[in-house]
C-alpha cells in the first residue's frame, strides 16, 4: 500500500540513480554541497577571499613553482616537464579555481604578470623559442592569393567553423573544424566527413589518408574550463609533434587563440584574456620558424585594452561574419612560400 501510494516517487528515484550513474554526473551534482562545505570551512577558520587564486600563479612567471598548491594530481615537478622554457614557469594551475564557477571572480583582477599585451609585437612570437632553427624576425612572409589554400587544411574549434562559413574559402580549402573541439580531442574526435560508408572519421585518420601542404591550427578556448595551463601546453606539443609525423612535408601554422572582449574576459568565469595570452605564449614557443610558424591575428582585431573590439562581436567570443575577412586577409598576408 505504501509502495503504491509513492509509486511515482519510487520510479522517479530509480530513474535518477540509473541516469546519473550512466552519465557519471554524481560528482557534478554534488558540487554545490562540496562548495558549501568548503565555504563553511573557510568561514569557520576565519580565512577571507577565494581559494588558490589563479592570478597569483600566473604572476609567478618563471619563479619557483614551490608556490604551487600541493596535492595536484598532475605530478609535474618544479620546473620539470618537456617545456624547458618560460611557459613551464607558469606553475601548475591544477584543477583548482579556474575550472569551477564561483571563485574565479578573483581570476581576472590584479594580474600583474608582465606578459606583453601583444599589440606592438604583433604577428611574430613574443618570446623567442628556446629551440630554434630561425629567429621569428628572420621569417619573411609573402602575400598570396586564395588558391594558396587549395592544399591547406584548417583544424580548429568554433572560431575555425566561423572561418569556414564566412572566410570565403569554402570551396578552396579543407576544414576539419568543430564547435567544442579541444586540444585533448583534436586527434580523436570524429569530425571529418568522408562521404562514404564510414561516416565520420577522426582527424588523425583523415591526416593519415591525405597529405596537405599547409596546416592551420587554432584551439584553446574550450579547454580553459579545466584551467590547467601546463597540461594544455604539454598536450599541444604532443599534438604538434604528431601532426608533423603525419604530415612531414606540411608547413604548420600555429595560430594564437583569438582573444575575447574585455567585458567577456571580466565576467569571472574561466574565459579570460590573461589565460589566453599565457597559452599563446606557450604556443609561440613551439614554433621553430622553419617548419612551424606562429601567427597571431589578435592585434588586428583587438583594442587598446587588449580585448577583442566590441563592435566586431556579438557574444564577446566569436567574430561576426562581417569581420572574418580580416582574419582571412591576415593569413593571406602571412604565408610562407617554400622555395622549390
Amino acid at each position, binding site marked *: 500500500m505504501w509502495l503504491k501510494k509513492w509509486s511515482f516517487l519510487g520510479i522517479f528515484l530509480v530513474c535518477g540513480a540509473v541516469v546519473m550513474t550512466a552519465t557519471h554526473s554524481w560528482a557534478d551534482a554534488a558540487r554545490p554541497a562540496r562548495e558549501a562545505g568548503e565555504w563553511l570551512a573557510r568561514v569557520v577558520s576565519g580565512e577571507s577571499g577565494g581559494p588558490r587564486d589563479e592570478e597569483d600563479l600566473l604572476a609567478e612567471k618563471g619563479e619557483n613553482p614551490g608556490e604551487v598548491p600541493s596535492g595536484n594530481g598532475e605530478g609535474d615537478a618544479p620546473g620539470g616537464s618537456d617545456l624547458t622554457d618560460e611557459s613551464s614557469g607558469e606553475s601548475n594551475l591544477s584543477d583548482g579555481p579556474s575550472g569551477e564557477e564561483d571563485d574565479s571572480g578573483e581570476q581576472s583582477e590584479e594580474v600583474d604578470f608582465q606578459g606583453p599585451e601583444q599589440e606592438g609585437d604583433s604577428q611574430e612570437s613574443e618570446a623567442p623559442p628556446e629551440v630554434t632553427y630561425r629567429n621569428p624576425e628572420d621569417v619573411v612572409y609573402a602575400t598570396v592569393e586564395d588558391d594558396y589554400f587549395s592544399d591547406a587544411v584548417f583544424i580548429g574549434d568554433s572560431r575555425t567553423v566561423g572561418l569556414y562559413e564566412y572566410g570565403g574559402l569554402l570551396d578552396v580549402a579543407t576544414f576539419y573544424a568543430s564547435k567544442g573541439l579541444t586540444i585533448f580531442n583534436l586527434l580523436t574526435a570524429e569530425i571529418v566527413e568522408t562521404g562514404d560508408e564510414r561516416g565520420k572519421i577522426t582527424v588523425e585518420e583523415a591526416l593519415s589518408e591525405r597529405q596537405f601542404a599547409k596546416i592551420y591550427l587554432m584551439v584553446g578556448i574550450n579547454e580553459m574550463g579545466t584551467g590547467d595551463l601546463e597540461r594544455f601546453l604539454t598536450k599541444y606539443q604532443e599534438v604538434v609533434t604528431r601532426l608533423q609525423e603525419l604530415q612531414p612535408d606540411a608547413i604548420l601554422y600555429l595560430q594564437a587563440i583569438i582573444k575575447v572582449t574585455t567585458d567577456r574576459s571580466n565576467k569571472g568565469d574561466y574565459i579570460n584574456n590573461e589565460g589566453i595570452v599565457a597559452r599563446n605564449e606557450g604556443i609561440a614557443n613551439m614554433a621553430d620558424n622553419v617548419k612551424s610558424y606562429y601567427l597571431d591575428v589578435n592585434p588586428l582585431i583587438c583594442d587598446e585594452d587588449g580585448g577583442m573590439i566590441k563592435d566586431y562581436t556579438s557574444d564577446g567570443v566569436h567574430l*561576426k561574419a562581417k569581420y572574418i575577412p580580416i582574419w582571412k586577409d591576415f593569413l593571406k598576408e602571412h604565408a610562407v612560400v617554400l622555395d622549390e
Partner: protein
Amino acid sequence: MVFSSIKFLLYFLPIFLVLYGITPKSCRNLTLLIGSIIFYTLGDPHSLLLLLLSMGVNYFIGLYLVGRREGHRKVRKKRKALLTAAIIGNVGMLALFKFAPGGLELPLGISFYTFQVLSYLLDVYRGEIRREMSFLKFAVYISMFPQLISGPIVYYSEVSAQLESREFTAEGIQEGLKVFIMGLVSKVLLADRVGILWTQVQTTGFESISTPLAWLAAVAYSLKLYFDFYGYSLMGIGLGRMLGFELPENFKEPYMALGVRDFYRRWHMTLGRWFRKYVYIPLGGNRGTEGRTILNLLVVWVLTSLWHGKTLNFLVWGLGLWLLIVFERQLGRLKWMPKLRVLPRLYLWAVIPVTWMCFEITDLSQLEVYLGRMFGFVQGINVYARDWYSVLSDYGGLLLICFVACTPLVRKLYGILKDRLIGMVALGTLFWVCVWRIIVEGENIFTYFHF
C-alpha cells in the same frame, strides 16, 4: 535562484519539501514564507528589503481599504484617496526601477509581485474579496516561491482558501512533480536547445544572415520564448500543486491560435487578464463605439509594452500588435467573413515571429537590419548563401518536435500516460536527463527572469 538549476532541483527543493513535511500543518505557512524568503535571497539578496517593504506596506493599506460602499462620504473619500496613493506608490516604484535613466538593475520579480499586490488592493477596494487580516497569509500570497519570480500572476481569490487550509499529500506531491517535470523538459530540452539557433544567428551578426535563415531563426526564437516561459509557468504550477495550491494556467496552446487577438488570449494569460480586468474593462472595454474600443486597446497595449521594458522596441512591438488586433477586429465585423482554419494559422505564423523580433531586439538599428534581412530591404554583408541548409539539418528534428509540442497532442498524451508505468518511467527519466543536460551545458537563465 532559477528553477532549472542543480542548486534548486537537487538541494533547495528536496530539503524544503522535507522541512515542509515535518512542519505541523498549522505552521506550514510560516515554513513556506521562510523558504520563499531564502529562495529570494539566494537569487537577489539586495532586493529582499524592497520585497519585505512592499509586503509590509501593502498589507497595512489593505487593512484600511475595506469596501467602498461602506461608511459615509468622508470615509469613502479617504479610502479612495488611499487606493490612489497605493496605486501611485506601487506603480511609481515599479516605474522607478524600470525607467530610471541610469539603468538600475530591476529587483527580481518586481514586475510580477507588484501587479499581484495591485490586484489584491483593487479587489479589496471593490469589495470582491475580504482583506487578509493575517500578515503571514498575505506575505505567503505575495512571496511564495512557486510564483514569486516570474508569475503566474495570481488573484488572491484563487488561493485564499488554500492559504487558510490545504493538504500536503502523497498524491499532491507526485502529481505536482509530474507537472513540474513537464515544465522542466519544456525549458531544458526544448527552449534551451532551439534557443541555440537564435544565439548562433546573433553571433554571426544579423547583417550576414540569409533571408531564409532570418525567418528560420525568428521561428526558432518564437519557439524558444514560448517553451521557456511556458516551461517556467508549468514548473510554478507543479510546485504549487505539490504544496497544495492550484495556481492559474498561463498558456493555452497559443501557437494554435487563429489570429493575433486569439493568440493573446492564450499567451501569458495571467498578464492579459490582469490588464483586461483592471484597465480595459474599467475604461469601458468594447461596450462603447468601435472608436472607443480601439482607444481602450491602445491604452492596454501601450501599458503592456511599458511593463515589458523601457526601450523603444517594446513600443514598436506593442503598437504593431495593436494595429494587427484592430485590423482583425475590423475583419471580424464584416458579416461575410467565412470561418477559416488554415489561412488564419498561416497568417499567424507569418506575423508572430516578426513581432517577436521587435520584442527581442532592443537595439532599433539592429532590428532594422534584421527585418531588412527578413524582407530583403537591407543588403547582406558577407552572407553565406547556404547557411540555412546546415541549420536545417542540425535543427530540423528539434523544430519538428517543437511544432508538435505546440499542439494539444502533448497535453492529451500526458493525461493518458501520466498514471501508467510507461508514463511514469518516461517522466522520471526525463527529469534526470534534464539534470544531466543542465550539468553539462551550464544553467541558462530564463528569459522572463529580467522582468
